[in-house]
């Protein structure tokens, strides 16, 4: 019920949005977001209090994360501002290994005394749990980086942009939607700045400044006579960028089929809202799809979610090993499949890479939340399963001795654990455009944007909808479709991948609030791809009469 209450508050309609209340922190003024955080020298001194306390209590390892999390959210509907939220959350999380067992505690009392107490609590928890721990924690070695720092390469800090400018932009987008036939429109702008300081007994002191942004909207068009209503969500992507993402540069726009506009590293919200209203209206009378097998042409802002669910999650090592069995589930991509060295995850042209360094992505950081320098690695190469996503205490279980650098915690208040890095599909190597792809399809459907999504607990069977659908007949787009969802099996689906457009079509999709763990934590992650073709996929008709 909590989630629903927030959804109502955000006004974006059920299913459009999930914002955990814990992301909100303490309310502050927009000006206060600009106040400088704690000086790095002070952070080092305080982090050392945790590390030294842990060592003196017999811990073999300790890390401390001092975090200042700043968020600004703006919500509007039609011509009204519903809410402007500015929050700050500040505190320290301390993790230790004592008697070969993890212990964690956190506090918002970032004084020497507060840190000492929290460290003692973390050690006490580790000692208590060590009595039932069967196998001691084993950490992969990591380099000692000394004092280093990293920043998201932003051009415009959202905190420097006045709230009124953001409100005006959202209200302009709403006005454009209303002018183009929308009955209702909700829009929102989420902006996040994580100021994270990490220190560990391995000798690293890492200061990072991470930025993320997500503009989004939902328009609804209603036909009162028939009682039908249809909506269309934004075709934006959440990005690891500054406010420059909102510039709407023409150079970053792509012309999609049937007059749709797609956006790369710069988003034109007003234009998208106007087109969104037109497309929502068109959906009211669009042809209902005939169920059957179709060749699917999937646009990156749609395919990203399919990659997320059918590649990102099943290749998380903690799921494979059973740590998530009671919540998110396990994985079909078991160790024996990987050990065989010839498990065909997809067709020969399928290359899926994990990457924590990709510029503009949500997952990009210099170092992960246990002080490992980030990198890029293969998950699937030429269709064959090559690797998983693993962190320091896991890699030895797959015979490796270097962490992949994908450990993350949503705040100083929660313990860090393995989270999905950006997972992306490499673009096709030969020159091949979306127009070329459509020309080659006899009976197919072009799908853009995210829609309904559902996948089983081992990531075999999935069903995805989309934002807009167009029918392809004999190499041409012939009109809009509705009531479309496709069902497939992960391995079958990726092996039906026959063509991938080239680099010029490559874009990122993102998920701002990916959930995992108990108690649940969110993380933000991007998935890049170019438009991709999948042959003979089962499409169902989701229209019902009640």
């Amino acid at each position, binding site marked *: 019920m909590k989630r629903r209450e927030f959804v109502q508050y955000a006004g974006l309609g*059920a299913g459009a949005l999930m914002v955990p209340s814990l992301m909100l922190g303490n309310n502050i*003024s927009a000006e206060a977001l600009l106040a400088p955080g704690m000086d790095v020298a002070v952070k080092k001194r305080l982090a050392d209090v945790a590390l030294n306390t842990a060592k003196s209590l017999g811990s073999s390892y300790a890390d401390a994360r001092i975090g200042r999390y700043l968020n600004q959210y703006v919500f509007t509907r039609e011509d009204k501002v*519903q809410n402007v939220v500015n929050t700050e959350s500040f505190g320290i999380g301390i993790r230790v290994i004592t008697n070969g067992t993890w212990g964690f505690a956190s506090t918002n009392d970032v004084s020497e005394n507060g840190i000492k107490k929290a460290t003692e609590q973390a050690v006490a*928890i580790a000692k208590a749990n060590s009595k039932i721990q069967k196998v001691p924690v084993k950490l992969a070695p990591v380099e000692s980086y000394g004092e280093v720092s990293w920043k998201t390469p932003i051009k415009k800090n959202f905190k420097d942009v006045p709230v009124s400018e953001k409100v005006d932009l959202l209200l302009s987008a709403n006005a454009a939607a209303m002018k183009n036939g929308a009955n209702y429109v909700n829009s929102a702008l989420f902006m996040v700045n994580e100021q994270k300081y990490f220190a560990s007994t391995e000798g690293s002191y890492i200061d990072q400044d991470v930025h993320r942004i997500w503009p989004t909207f939902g328009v609804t068009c209603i036909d009162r006579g028939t009682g039908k209503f249809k909506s269309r969500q934004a075709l934006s992507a959440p990005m690891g960028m500054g406010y420059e993402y909102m510039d709407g540069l023409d150079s970053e726009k792509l012309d999609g089929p049937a007059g749709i506009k797609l956006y790369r590293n710069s988003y034109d919200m007003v234009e998208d809202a106007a087109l969104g209203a037109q497309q929502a209206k068109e959906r009211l009378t669009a042809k209902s799809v005939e169920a059957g097998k179709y060749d699917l042409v999937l646009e990156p802002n749609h395919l990203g979610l399919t990659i997320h669910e059918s590649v990102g999650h099943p290749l998380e090592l903690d799921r494979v090993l059973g740590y998530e069995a009671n919540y998110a589930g396990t994985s*079909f991509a078991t160790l024996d499949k990987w050990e065989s060295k010839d498990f065909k995850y997809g067709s020969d042209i399928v290359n899926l890479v994990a990457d924590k360094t990709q510029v503009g992505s949500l997952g990009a950081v210099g170092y992960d939340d246990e002080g490992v320098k980030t990198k890029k690695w293969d998950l699937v190469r030429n269709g064959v399963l090559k690797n998983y996503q693993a962190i320091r205490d896991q890699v030895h279980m797959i015979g490796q001795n270097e962490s992949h650098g994908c450990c993350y915690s949503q705040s100083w208040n929660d313990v860090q654990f393995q989270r999905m890095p950006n997972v992306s599909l490499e673009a096709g190597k030969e020159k091949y455009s979306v127009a070329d792809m459509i020309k080659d399809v006899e009976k197919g459907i072009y799908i853009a944007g995210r829609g309904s999504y559902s996948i089983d607990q081992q990531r075999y069977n999935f*069903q995805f909808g989309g934002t807009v659908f167009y029918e392809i007949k004999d190499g041409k787009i012939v009109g809009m479709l509705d009531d479309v*969802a496709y069902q497939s099996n992960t391995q079958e689906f990726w092996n039906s991948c026959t063509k991938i457009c080239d680099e010029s079509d490559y874009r990122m999709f993102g998920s701002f609030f990916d959930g995992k763990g108990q108690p649940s934590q969110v993380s933000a992650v991007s998935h890049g791809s170019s438009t991709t073709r999948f042959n003979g996929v089962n499409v169902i008709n989701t229209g019902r009469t*009640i």
Partner: protein
Amino acid sequence: MAIYTKEEARKIMEKALSFSKADACEVNLNGSESGNIRYARNTVSTAGHRSNQTLVVQSNFGKKSGTATIDEFDDVSLEKVVRRAEELAKLSPENPEFMEPLGPQSYDESITFSEATANITPEYRAKVANSSIEPAAAKDVTAAGFLNDSAGFSAMMNSKGLFAYNKSTSANFTVTMRTNDGTGSGWVTRDYNDISKFDAAEASKIAIDKALMSKEAKAIEPGKYTVILEPAASIGLLGNMFGAFNARTADEGRSFMSKEGGGTKLGEKIVDERIQLWSDPLNSEVPTGTWNGSGQPLKKMKWIENGVVKNLSYSRYWAKKKGVEAVPFPSNGIMAGGDASLEDLIKDTKKGILVTRLWYIRSVDPQTLLYTGLTRDGTFYIENGKLKHPVKNFRFNESPIIMLNNLETLGQQVRINGNLIPYMKVRDFTFTSLSDAV
């Protein structure tokens, strides 16, 4: 100590309000102590404890409001947080939908607090984990589970004279049992206000039995089947249906509850006439607080009677706009059941499928309340009144409205996620594909 008594809370809140210079001021004070243990691979993986207290102050000048929060309650801090809320209110844009705080209200005394739950220790949590792990290991099964318990209070006061206070406890338990050969999986969930009703070994045994029974499932063709839905299976769909009981989206024409040609389905029969659905904060099995975040009293309220929509929820703003009484969104859901036990329902089924739970439920079409998702952790074929064999999991595409129109039998009620829901036998439930997932 994070849990204040009524008088302690009143004192802090009165002090905070005394600093207010705004047109109106409303303060919420909350505190809780919660603990959890998580286990997987037959060993404990993480455990934690959290204690927090927050005072939220909302001040308004006309239709401009600002909110500020603080976790320290000395006089200086209280004044600081009130000033901050006032500054934010002055800076914020006008909200045309802003509603003045409510005046004094009278509330029923809630029955949500249990000493036993408030006194849970880390040792108790470890014992719960062990009650799953030991019997699992003895049967060649691996346990992964989670117990989370909390005790807390919430209080609300405003400058119009409203005061509300409630103390509550809760505990939630889930465990997944998987056979070590990876071919069987079982699951169970329990939730309580009063933990003394909880038997971890009994619950764990159900999950272990289901895991062993679900080994080597057979594939049967997807299609329309008679199903027996355990309450854990139907709650997801019912909860989503409940979400549509919102007058505003219905009036706006963008909800299942909107009617062709305008208006809403209030007063219309939407499901089988045996369906009775109400909410009641004083139900002894599923008690909740007796007031909501706006300070509105929560009372017993009918939502569906004899299959007919009796009420839609109205926010204070929407009620004023429509000239009707506000109807707060319910804090629990209670669906009338029958006398039949699960065993009785199975015995009376010629051909059907028993579903333990549905998982990854997502909206497909809000117009028809169509949802998709999958069965998980114990799906069995029933023939001639007996569980014949386990079946592979299915994906479904179904609407709770269609499901409740296809009702065959209502069984006994069970508490699930704070609601009271009966076992249900339903015909023609739509499974659209098979899943290999165990």
